[in-house]
Structures are given as C-alpha cells and as structure tokens.
C-alpha cells in the first residue's frame, strides 16, 4: 500500500470516528428489499428526487443573476438569455426540469396507486406524497410567476380572480396573494420568497419524511393477485419476504434507479438544448392589452375547464371540487388501507386512473389551441375565400363585407379560417332558414351576443343574404316547413346559381 493511500485511510478514519455516519449509511444502502421490487416500475420516486436536486442546483445558479423586482425581473431574464454565457441553457434546464418533474411525480403517483402501495402500513407515506404533489405544483406556479412576463402577469390576475370568489374573505385573500391592491412589486417579491424559501423548505422536509418512511417501512413488494393486505399479518409477512427472498437495495436494485435517473436527466438536458428556455414572452405591462395570456403546460387543463363551466356553476365548482379532489386523495389510504393490491383485481382503480389520465389529456390538448377564445385579429387577417364571393349578387357581396367588418370572423370560421368559439358557417344556410339567421344575428342567444345595436337594417339584410349562400358542398337549404304550408309552393333557395 502506498503512503498516500495509507494517509487517505487515516484521514477517513479520523473523520468517521467523529461523524460516525458511514456505518448507518452503508447499512441503509444495503438494506434487503423484496427481490420482486427490483423492477423498472419502481424507479420513478428516486427519479423525482434526482430532478428535485437538478432544480435546486439550476435554481441557485439562476438566482445568481435574476433580479426579483417587478421593474427589473423581465430585463434580467433577457440578460440571462442573451448576455450571460449559457444563461439560456440553465434557464432551459430549469424550465424543462420543472415539466419533467411534474410528469414523473404524476407517473410515480399512478404507479403507487395501481400497485396498492398506499395500503397499510404506508398510508402516511401516501399522504405526505399527496402533499409533495401539491408542493411541486406550487413550485411550478410560483416559478411561472417569477418568469415575470405577460403570461405571468395575467396568470396572477386569474389567480386573484379565482380566490376573489371565496365568500366573505375573498378580498382578504386577493390582497394576501398580491401583497397589495394590484399586481406589482410586492406580488413578485412574495412569490420569490415562496418559490425560493418557503415551498422548497417544506418540500425538502417532506421529501426527507417521505424517504425516511419508505426506508423504515420497506419498499412495497410486487403485488400478487389474491394476496390481501391485513393489518394483523402484513408486517410479519413482509419481513419474512425480505428475510427469505431479499436482495440488497445497493447494488441489486439501485442500478435500475441510477440508470433511469441518468436517462431522465439526459432527457431534460436534451429538451433544454433542442427546444431552449421558456420565454419570457412580452413585458409585464398591463397597459399592453394585445395579449392572449395562457398558463404553463401543467395548468392548461385548469384553464380549459374554466372555459366550459356555466357562470352559475363556476364559483361552487372552483371552491368545492379542489377540496373534494385533495380530500379524497388524502383519505384514500385511510378508507382503503387493507385488501387487494393487484391491479387486475381492482378494476375501479384502473378505470379511475384511465379516466383521470384521459380527462387531463383532453383538457390539456384543448388548452393548447383554446377553441373557446375569439381570434382577435381574424377579421382583418383572414380574407373571405374567393369562391364564396364568386358569382354572388352585389347584395351578397356587400354582406360578405359586413361579415368581415363586424368581426363575425373572430368567433366563426369560414373556409377553415377564423375563430372556433361559434359554429363554423360554411354550411349555415343548410342548417338555418333566413328567419332563423336573422333572429340569431339580431337577438343573439346560445353563446352569441345580440348584434341588433351594431347592425343597421341594410347591413343586416346584406349579411343574412351572404350567409344564405353558405351551403357547403351544395347542400339543400334549410326550409321552414310551416312557411311552405302557408305558401303552398316551394320558394327557390337564394344564393348559389345551379
């Protein structure tokens, strides 16, 4: 043995004699786990911890440059993107790391749920896990605020508007959220404190507790159909399983965790490299109203749900549903702490995961193209298709101009261009008669404002005549059966010459 190695061992022994951590750490690493748990399905929890570490490191690095001041935050982000060497890359890793972390936490949660790992004696591990999910989402939202751009600004407006719906203490909550009467310096400062001190502190402590309980109670064994959890026998059975059939966590299972953690970190780095950082979008200037604010990916589904609620249901929905969802997640292990763990014997559980995943997916997808939003510049940017003008009478052509000039296009598409808020009008005359169209335009109804005050009679006539030419691929025009009876004859349909 060389002198240097000997010296090294001496130093190690000197430290270990005083710290005394090596032995318990090695024991913990080598603790026996059920052989069945050394699975690729069991890697998501450790991956979430690794991503959290990545977020902490990149977050601290960003804090070296970022200025948490409403007047300067946006500029400092531009400076990070363009003037600091690799500043854009660090921002990109932090942003993508956030998206990956939410995804991994959700996958981890679904896996734990489907494998029945929340059952006795791991109920509290699940409950702390639910808290961790909420804290992760809290980090995502507060992080989106720190990217102090237009989306962040109006996202805070949406947050304030939601909490303002709470009865009695609504105003108090708005002021507490904003730190004052408007979204301004105090708002950013308090979200900075939340994102950098408060939530990470609670998050790290909760992760510690979560991992501590995983180690103390042992990792969930691979469920077997028909092997039911009983509070009276479970712990004895589990210890037998690890004693007779156990393998050391390090290295026999940990290599899979480590491999997956490396892969997921690499995926974050690759996304950051190829797709770059998120924003910042426009400056956080509330006097610039030419904006269509949108939340980050993780919150798009909420943004979409808020588009579909009828006004009368919205406040009760916003106040009750989150409580019910979080409450049932927290109560789940206490209500269903025993019994079957295997997914093949828990059809309701599988169905629930499938339904929730599909629901979140559909609403997120809708949130990416917001069909409920008017397209504010469609009336000036999307021309009426040539074939919709061709061979039309002067009155009908004038109607096409009214159609364009009165911004009908912002909510109704023709020729595949325009808003999707109202129905597409390419074949409107095949669905509605002249009277029905006139009534709908003047009085509104359904989800349409009335245009009686915005159109004079000649404009209305022209517009309706233009709309009557829109019959898709020469569909039969809609007819009013009662009118035909009173007239006794078929009146020829106006519009497209045959």
């Amino acid at each position, binding site marked *: 043995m060389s002198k240097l190695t000997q010296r090294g061992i001496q130093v190690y022994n000197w430290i270990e004699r005083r710290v005394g951590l090596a032995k318990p750490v090695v024991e913990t690493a080598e603790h026996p786990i059920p052989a069945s748990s050394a699975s690729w399905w069991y890697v998501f929890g450790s991956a979430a911890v690794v991503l959290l570490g990545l977020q902490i490191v990149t977050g601290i690095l960003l804090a070296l440059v970022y200025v948490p001041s409403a007047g300067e935050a946006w500029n400092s982000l531009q400076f990070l993107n363009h003037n600091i060497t690799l500043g854009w890359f660090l921002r990109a890793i932090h942003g993508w790391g956030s998206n990956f972390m939410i995804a991994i936490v959700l996958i981890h949660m679904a896996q734990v749920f489907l494998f029945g790992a929340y059952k006795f004696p791991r109920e509290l591990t699940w409950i702390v896990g639910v808290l961790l999910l909420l804290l992760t989402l809290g980090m995502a939202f507060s992080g989106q605020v720190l990217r102090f751009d237009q989306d962040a600004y*109006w996202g805070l407006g949406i947050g304030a508007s939601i909490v303002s719906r709470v009865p009695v203490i609504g105003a108090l909550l708005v002021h507490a959220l904003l730190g004052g009467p408007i979204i301004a310096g105090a708002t950013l400062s308090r979200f900075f404190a939340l994102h950098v001190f408060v939530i990470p502190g609670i998050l790290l402590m909760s992760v510690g507790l979560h991992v501590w309980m995983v180690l103390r109670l042992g990792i969930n064994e691979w469920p077997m159909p028909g092997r039911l959890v009983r509070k009276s026998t479970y712990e004895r059975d589990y210890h037998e399983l690890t004693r007779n059939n156990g393998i050391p966590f390090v290295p026999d299972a940990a290599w899979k965790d480590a491999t997956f953690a490396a892969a997921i970190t690499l995926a974050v780095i690759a996304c950051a490299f190829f797709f770059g950082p998120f924003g910042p979008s426009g400056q956080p200037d509330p006097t610039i109203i030419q904006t269509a604010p949108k939340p980050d990916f993780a919150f798009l589904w909420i943004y979409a749900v*808020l588009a579909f609620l009828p006004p009368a249901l919205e406040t009760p929905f916003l106040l009750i549903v989150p409580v019910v969802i979080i409450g049932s997640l927290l109560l789940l292990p206490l209500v269903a702490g025993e019994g079957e763990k295997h997914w093949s014997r828990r059809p309701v559980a599988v169905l629930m995961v499938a339904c929730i995943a599909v629901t979140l997916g559909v609403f997120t997808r809708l949130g990416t193209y917001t069909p409920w939003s008017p397209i504010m510049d469609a009336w000036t940017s999307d021309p009426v298709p040539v074939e919709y003008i061709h061979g039309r009478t002067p009155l009908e052509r004038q109607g096409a101009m009214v159609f364009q000039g*009165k911004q009908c296009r912002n909510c109704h598409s023709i020729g595949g261009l325009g808003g999707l808020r109202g129905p597409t009008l390419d074949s409107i005359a095949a669905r509605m008669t002249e009277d029905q169209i006139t009534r709908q335009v003047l009085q509104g109804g359904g989800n349409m404002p009335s245009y009686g005050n915005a159109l004079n009679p000649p404009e209305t006539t022209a517009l309706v005549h233009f709309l009557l030419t829109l019959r898709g691929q020469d569909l039969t025009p809609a007819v009013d059966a009662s009118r035909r009876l009173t007239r006794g004859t078929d009146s020829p349909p106006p519009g497209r010459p045959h």
Partner: protein
Amino acid sequence: MNTSNSRRAFLFKLSVLLNSVVGAVLAVPILGYILGPALRKSSSYDSWVALGSVNDFPEGETRLVDYRNPVTTPWDGQTGGVACWVRRLSGTQFQVFAINCAHLGCPVRWFAQSKLFLCPCHGGAYYADGSRASGPPPRGLFEYKHKISGNQLMVSAGEMPTLATEACVRAGRSSCPS
C-alpha cells in the same frame, strides 16, 4: 432524589411556558406583518386619478386610457401602470370600465365595429355599456367611480377589480354613479 426530580420537571415545564409566552409575543408582529396588506380595507387604496381633459374623449366613442396607479413603489416598474376603457356617451356622461374581465381578470379589448368588448382568455363578451353579452363572465364589466373636476375626467382607482375587490357594482348597489 424524587423531590429534586420533580423540581427539575417543574422548572422544565416553567421554561416551556416561558417560551410559549415569548412565542405568542413574537407572533403578534409576524402576523401583523404578513396580514398587513391583506387586512386593509379595499376602499382605503382608492384615490382620485385624472385621466385627461373631457375634450380628449369624442362623444359616442370608447377609448383606452393609461394611468399610473395611485399606490405604487419605485420598483413596480411597468406593473404600476393601469389601463381602462373610457366611454363618453355625450356631454358629461361617461362610463369608465376596468380592462379586467369579470370572469378571470384577463384584459378585454373593445371592438368599435361590432360594439363589443371581447376577452381573449375564455371568450367573455360585453356590450358597449359594459353589460354581460355572452360567455363565462358572471356579470358585466367592473366600472370605476368617476367625476368631472374642472375640465378633467377623474376616476376613483387604486385596486385591481375582482369579484371581491370591485370599487363599484353596477347592478343594484348605490356606490355607482348613475
């Protein structure tokens, strides 16, 4: 032995009590500091702000006006600015609307041709007088109290209007100008 033990136990309990008292004393400034902005009355933020000369607003038109929020700090930067929609009906008859949609606070835009305010977020629509036309908003646009002082149009502003912190409710309550 037993007596000294109980004496130490008593002293320990006493020290716990002492710390509870100190904690309670400390909680007063902490809570007061945290809740300070939250507990202020909404109306206490409002003051009169000049939006410009009455003649700047043509009759029958609705225009976007910016002003600086009366309560700001130097580090608020651009966020200290506020925009509002001013509608002059005729003479000294005005309506001043917040740009914040009554649904979720997004900035509504005025379309003079179709005489509608439209919200880009979820498609809330309002008529020229601010009343709800369609979409998810539960009510009409928020309106600021206003007055004409000399030749200046003034609004009572200072707070982002939401369902809980509106300066003035159009439908029903008395705080609104007629």
